[in-house]
């Protein structure tokens, strides 16, 4: 402490002696400025200064008033005002508290795919949509996907799920899924997890239990590759597994089908992007057999063109 104080004092004295700046000359700012001067003088060679000559200037200085190196104060240098009843009244008017919008209900609906597909059997219209409404932790989710071929609905389903964030990147979801096609309508219970595995890489895994005891598992993922900030290549993958054969709907137990997609979109605005792409669907095992029995192929590549939009 002593050393520091001495240096400050030197610095101060030099300043007082060498400058004629009005702010320094009037002693009132000395207390604060000394620190600055000390800093500025860090590289100074004190041996070249005539410290003895400064004694006169330093006499009468109140070291206790210097900010650094001194014992801390026990009372505030600026007196804390003694409170009056008027102060108390002004401080606490009866009020309900401030409001911000941190608990507001938000929503998002993404029509990720709405596309024409050039299928072997003709032309197909396919969609894949998802959305949510809710807060930051709890959200109500909607998912829907389906396909119409030559004007007939071949597949259509909708899921309504309650989602709860279990970490920064993962939500657990639970709810119901209603299939309208293929075959007769079917209702499922759904339970799953969804989230962001990597930046711009979204995945979901959902297990389903159908009303007739059928079980299913769907894994899906999609990734955005930025060719530019508006031209975006999106690979997708979806994989379906079933617990048992369901010949009426053309699904067999085990790994039933996979679909890979690659879509190139251009975001005219963030909310609206036309795209083109290809998909490659393949079925396996019994599912493939059922498909062949119906005269279809076990795998098929399609050219697609569509629009992606959200609001």
């Amino acid at each position, binding site marked *: 402490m002593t050393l520091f104080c001495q240096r400050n004092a030197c610095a101060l004295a030099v300043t007082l002696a060498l400058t004629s700046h*009005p702010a320094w000359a009037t002693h009132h700012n000395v207390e604060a400025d000394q620190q600055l001067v000390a800093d500025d003088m860090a590289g100074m060679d004190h041996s070249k200064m005539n410290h003895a000559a400064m004694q006169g200037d330093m006499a009468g200085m109140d070291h206790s008033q210097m*900010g650094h190196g001194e014992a801390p104060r026990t009372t505030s240098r600026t007196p804390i005002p003694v409170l009056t009843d008027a102060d108390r009244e*002004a*401080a*606490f008017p009866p*009020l309900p*508290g401030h409001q911000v919008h941190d608990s507001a209900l938000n929503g998002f609906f993404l029509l990720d795919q709405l596309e024409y597909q050039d299928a072997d059997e003709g032309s197909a219209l396919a969609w894949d949509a998802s959305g949510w409404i809710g807060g930051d932790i709890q959200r109500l989710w909607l998912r829907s996907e389906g396909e119409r071929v030559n004007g007939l609905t071949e597949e259509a389903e909708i899921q309504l799920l309650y989602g709860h*964030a279990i970490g*920064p990147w993962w939500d657990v979801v639970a709810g119901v899924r209603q299939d309208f096609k293929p075959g007769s309508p079917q209702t499922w219970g759904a339970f799953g997890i969804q989230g962001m595995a*990597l930046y711009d890489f979204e995945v979901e895994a959902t297990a389903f239990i159908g009303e007739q005891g059928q079980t299913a598992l769907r894994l899906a993922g999609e990734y955005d590759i930025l060719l530019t900030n508006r031209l975006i290549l999106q690979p997708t993958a979806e994989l379906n597994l079933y617990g048992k054969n369901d010949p009426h709907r053309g699904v067999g137990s085990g790994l039933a089908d996979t679909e890979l997609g690659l879509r190139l979109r251009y975001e005219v605005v963030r909310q609206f992007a036309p795209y083109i792409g290809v998909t490659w669907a393949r079925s396996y095992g019994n599912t493939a057999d059922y498909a062949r029995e119906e005269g279809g192929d076990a795998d098929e590549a399609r050219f697609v063109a569509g629009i992606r939009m959200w609001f």
Partner: protein
Amino acid sequence: MHSKSTRRTFVKGLAATGIFGGLGLWRTPVWAVTSPGQANVLSGSVFDLSIDQLPVNFTGAARMAMAINGSIPGPTLRWREGDTVTLRVRNRLDEDTSIHWHGIILPANMDGVPGLSFHGIAPDGLYEYRFKVNQNGTYWYHSHSGAQEQLGVYGALVVDAKEPEPFAYDRDYVVLLSDWTDENPQRVLAKLKKQSDYYNFNKRTVGDFINDVSEMGWAAAMADRKMWAEMKMSPTDLADVSGHTYTYLMNGQAPDGNWTALFKRGEKIRLRFINASAMSYFDVRIPGLKMTVVAADGLHVAPVSVDEFRIAVAETYDVIVEPEQAEAYTLFAQSMDRTGYARGTLAVREGLSAPVPSVDPRPLISMADMGMDHSSMAGMDHSQMQGMDHSQMAGMAGMDHSQMQGMDHSQMAGMAGMDHSQMQGMSSMQTHPASEMNNPLVDMQTMQPTSKLADPGIGLRDNGRRVLTYADLRSTFADPDGRLPSRTIELHLTGHMEKFAWSFNGIKFSDAEPLRLKYGERVRITLVNDTMMTHPIHLHGMWSDLEDEQGNFMVRKHTIDMPPGSKRSYRVTADALGRWAYHCHLLFHMETGMFREVRVDE
């Protein structure tokens, strides 16, 4: 929305809003000076302000804004230190409004925060503010209701000093910077909630990756991409809202409007920079001129000569310039994310302009910026920290105590006071509040934050210019309190980019208890930035006395800028009874939860 007013003033932003003239020689009582350019300055001690809708056109598109006394910015209010001012604020909107006097020390019921200070001002209502002004300098005022601040409800406050100031000048101009969007601010926020990178059109692409591979090599480029991918963040995330929607204004003028301040050669000009933006930081410079910074957040600082300074949202800096050579100089304020700029001219006569620089190259945020520099974490098992998935990092908070020798566990309440040096292999590792653990609203935590006081900041390092840093700021007065803080309150700035949710300690305002201070006490607030964004933190009612790394008083401010990866401390004297707002001054961060009530009780 319909206006209650019958008066209609169409203001063409490119031409007529916010024209400030020279405010005269400082030695002349400024309220006595009149000149045509001063139409937008109100002086005295009694003011009538009216908040109304205002048709504007800043971009070529007609929009409805909100304005104080029919201009954006509102009138510059000129007060005198020591006066008691009366401000009658009328609301001609059809929604509640309020005015907060940013940086002014006053009784709680005059502070203008709805729900904490008063009920707000109802449509057709009037609130009379009345308080004694015990300070001088450059401040500003703005609505504290919803997003009205983004819509134009802000203006400059200048308090003339009672005593002569320790510097001289011949002219005095307010340079108020702000951001304007033609979109409805609520719509902007809604978009951010849906897609938080909506306004970022500078994300890294495949082309950038190829460039990086050719420069850094495949392994390094892949490692870099992998790290960011695993963090689920983008190093291009410099601002949530960009020039894609914002037009940056200087005294209410778009860049093409070229707001102009006049001078005569040899004069000293005081420029009072105010960042009244909702969401935008600016890097300010005047090519060809040195700027001597003489005040920060209204209060005098030891003069420091710089080429450039970064001004956080809500901060103010007063600089003195002495133009001698040229006839015109460009006032250039580029947004921190380099997506645009506000611009004006210092000129010897109207109609002149100087070359306008192009914006600087866009920087990337680095792991080191966020206090996440892996290379410096000796002794840590990186394999355990999968991509900074912090849910996996519970081991750092609930650290294996058996490994820590010589620790006094009784001292570990809240872990804030932990002596890190005692932890083997974990030196200088930042601890975090328990409320951040497994919290879906906390997407990252800094590991080794530093004060960064001498850091010019992201995008300003090594640019060949002398850039102001916080380490340059020294109040011209001693610590006005002088006591050691009786306790330290550590608060972490937290958020989730993708969800666009912001908070302190992972707890949003709605879920948080007030921070309680005892009247008269001196406390230290230590902030740790656990996000990758920069946050200007503003405490109402009381000053924030910034400390250096050794705990010495540096500078008294009202808004403390917190870059990513920073840990900064300041002292607060709880000399203001009441309920006070304490928040990030980025409007949409505040609105989504980065806000606390500070309650000072006896």
